[in-house]
């Protein structure tokens, strides 16, 4: 019956190029039945396995680069790569909600991150600090929530006029806004203005010291090195300098990485649930064709504003978790549009529209494209026993491959961009949908590959 129907439709005036639709339910066989217990689902579908495999490959590479330098180098590099991978994954997940799910071309990620981390800093910093700008002196959780709220609010301000425009205008508005935010934070006049009016400051171009990291205080009394807490004693005694011999500050760093991993799971579950729901379906419909969503009774503008605010709040939180743990933030090197570009690359590599893809994209970007080349370059440079030529011309003229390699490995930073470009071209060409972009992410809270009723209550 069904085949006859299909057959009847084939000689249509508008044939679809031989894509004879056949019943093909198997395709959805591996899709999440529900976002509930997304972690368990992820485990079952090996998404978690995929992420762990990616991490293990990264660790293997890190070990290969550093094993000659001892345990601390290995674990130190692993920690750095995991940290960067996780913060890029967090940012990519937030951006994926905008770009992957809803098709909102937000290229102001860096600005929203800056708003998050600066608001957190201002709210938490002591009103009477030894140095740097004063703050409100409120507890850290208040600061984090305030940071997210401020990012969402700035997002709302950007969204109200921009979302009624076409996608490319939203891009221009968000890019402009992100630069306005950066330059405002940079401005000493704004700093002075804030100090004069509400008694807090941004620190201008010199930046702002971040509140002490509670994870560090878990290990060390008041965060002072060499003064461990009871918990710190225990951990340092087993895996740290008193046990396996890993430097205590690397152990503390790993502690923070674990916290990031918990946040990543939280982001993932939240976004999976959002995606696998009627709300997510509306987002997908807006991405595909706004007018259809509108004509079916969906308040497109309101949905866009909501999702923009949610995404911006998550970007704010990602900014706090990332830059808030770095001791000091300053607007200019840290919140340049380049950061937004990097996060986009992570989303594109992973495959926009897929949350697991964003996580893997974040890890792969951070390890292979961002941090990897520098480390690999310096490792290779360490082996080469030759002076570095003065200039590229000298390196070429010398006709000595060793000298050329020495020059290349000593100048990895610019080469890194060429490498990044090549990888992007390769991905666009070979896998335009990214590593996991070809996966079907069904926007429904129930399994759509089968018709059975009520079988999906895993609440």
């Amino acid at each position, binding site marked *: 019956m*069904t085949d006859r*129907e299909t057959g*009847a*439709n*084939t*000689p*249509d*005036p*508008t*044939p*679809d190029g031989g894509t004879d*639709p*056949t*019943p*093909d*339910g198997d*395709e*959805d066989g591996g899709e999440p039945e*529900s976002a*509930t217990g997304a972690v368990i689902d992820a485990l079952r579908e090996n998404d978690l396995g995929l992420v762990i495999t990616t991490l293990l490959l990264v660790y293997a590479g890190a070990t290969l680069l550093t094993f000659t330098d001892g345990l601390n180098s290995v674990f130190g590099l692993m920690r750095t790569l995991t940290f960067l991978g996780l913060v890029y994954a967090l940012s990519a997940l937030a951006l994926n909600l905008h770009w992957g799910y809803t098709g909102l071309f937000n290229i102001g990620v860096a600005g929203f991150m800056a708003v998050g981390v600066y608001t957190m800093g201002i709210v938490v910093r002591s009103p009477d600090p030894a140095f740097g700008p004063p703050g409100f002196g409120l507890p850290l959780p208040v600061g984090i929530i305030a940071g997210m709220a401020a990012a969402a609010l700035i997002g709302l301000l950007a969204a109200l006029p921009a979302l009624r425009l076409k996608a490319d205008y939203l891009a221009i508005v968000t890019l402009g806004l992100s630069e306005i935010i950066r330059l405002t934070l940079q401005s000493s006049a704004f700093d002075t203005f804030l100090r004069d009016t509400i008694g807090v400051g941004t620190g201008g171009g010199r930046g702002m010291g971040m509140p002490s990291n509670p994870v560090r205080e878990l290990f060390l009394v008041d965060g002072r090195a060499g003064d461990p807490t009871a918990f710190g004693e225990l951990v340092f005694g087993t895996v740290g300098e008193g046990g396996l011999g890993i430097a205590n500050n690397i152990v503390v760093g790993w502690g923070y990485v674990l916290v990031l991993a918990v946040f990543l799971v939280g982001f993932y579950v*939240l976004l999976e*649930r*959002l995606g696998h*729901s*009627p*709300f*997510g*379906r*509306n987002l*997908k*419909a807006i*991405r*595909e*064709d706004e*007018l*259809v*969503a*509108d*004509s*079916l*009774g*969906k*308040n*497109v503008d309101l949905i866009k504003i*909501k*999702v923009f605010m*949610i995404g911006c709040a998550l970007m704010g939180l990602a900014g706090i978790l990332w830059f808030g743990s770095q001791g000091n933030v300053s607007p200019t090197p840290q919140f340049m549009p380049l950061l937004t570009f990097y996060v986009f690359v992570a989303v594109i590599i992973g495959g926009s529209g897929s949350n697991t893809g964003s996580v893997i994209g974040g890890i792969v970007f951070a390890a292979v494209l961002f941090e990897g080349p520098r480390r690999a370059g310096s490792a290779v440079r360490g082996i080469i026993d030759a002076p570095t030529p003065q200039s590229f011309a000298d390196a070429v003229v010398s006709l000595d491959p060793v000298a050329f390699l020495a020059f290349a490995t000593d100048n990895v930073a610019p080469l890194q961009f060429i490498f990044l470009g090549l990888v992007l071209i390769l991905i666009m060409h070979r896998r335009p949908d990214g590593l996991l972009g070809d996966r*079907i992410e*069904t*926007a*429904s*809270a*129930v399994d*759509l590959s089968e*018709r059975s*009723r*009520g079988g*999906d*209550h895993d*609440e």
Partner: protein
Amino acid sequence: MSSDTPDTSDLPEDTDVADDEPEANDSAVEEAAKRVPSGVPLRVEGLVKQFGGVTAVDGASFEVERGSLTGLIGPNGAGKSTTFNCITGVHEATAGNIYFKNEDITGMEPYQIAQKGLVRTFQIARELGGMSVLENLMLAPKNQIGESAIRSVTPGLRGGVIEEEAEIRERAWETLEFFEIEHLATENAENLSGGQRKLLEMARALMTDPEMVLLDEPLAGVNPTLEEKLLDRIHRLREDDYTFLLVEHDMNVIMNNCEHVIVMHQGNVLAEGTGEEIRNDERVIEAYLGEDV
């Protein structure tokens, strides 16, 4: 049978319409229609739409009766699609009023109009290509509790969302069966043929649980077998008290299927009546059929 409403009070254009309309003075019908509001879900009064200096619709007025299958025809450029877009809120009318269930919906957003039970399909099918056929259908139901982001993510509330989703899924399957495209349920909509997309569009419109459906050339580019199937479904739905307004290019389809036909010409309603009346109307023959013959 005339249902033209020459409301000359606020629109000078209407006078012209009234002059053009031999049956326009039949105010008894109009009075009756006003007394029984539910009898006329859709009423267009003196609709004018200008794009820059071009007047696409120039004072069109008509009514669509409840439970009817009304056809809207006219030569190219008669203003059919523009009228459609004004009714559904895609375009903002330059002048005139549109009433749905006796409520003035002029100037409302498309989503507000759809929420009121007046939903449309598109001339060129606008399937959501990156979504499966089931997702396309499940998108449509109005006021789903899971459309709230908070409900979708909060542990205690999500149970209700999942329950509702199972119900919507079942309804979507039933609708797919009604249109006999259930074998395509998990297919991505972009893989469907032109005709299947038209079926999908209509199925999706019905999933919003509308009172009235505006069909913009639902048969364009559809093969005869599928055309018959589509028309059969429309007739069956009519029996279930759905109201249809059909824009169509093909005179024969309209004449054979619609009990009431509105002919538009140069932005105005040229004639109204049964298929037979229209077929014998000299002005229609001159304006429309004359082109083809």
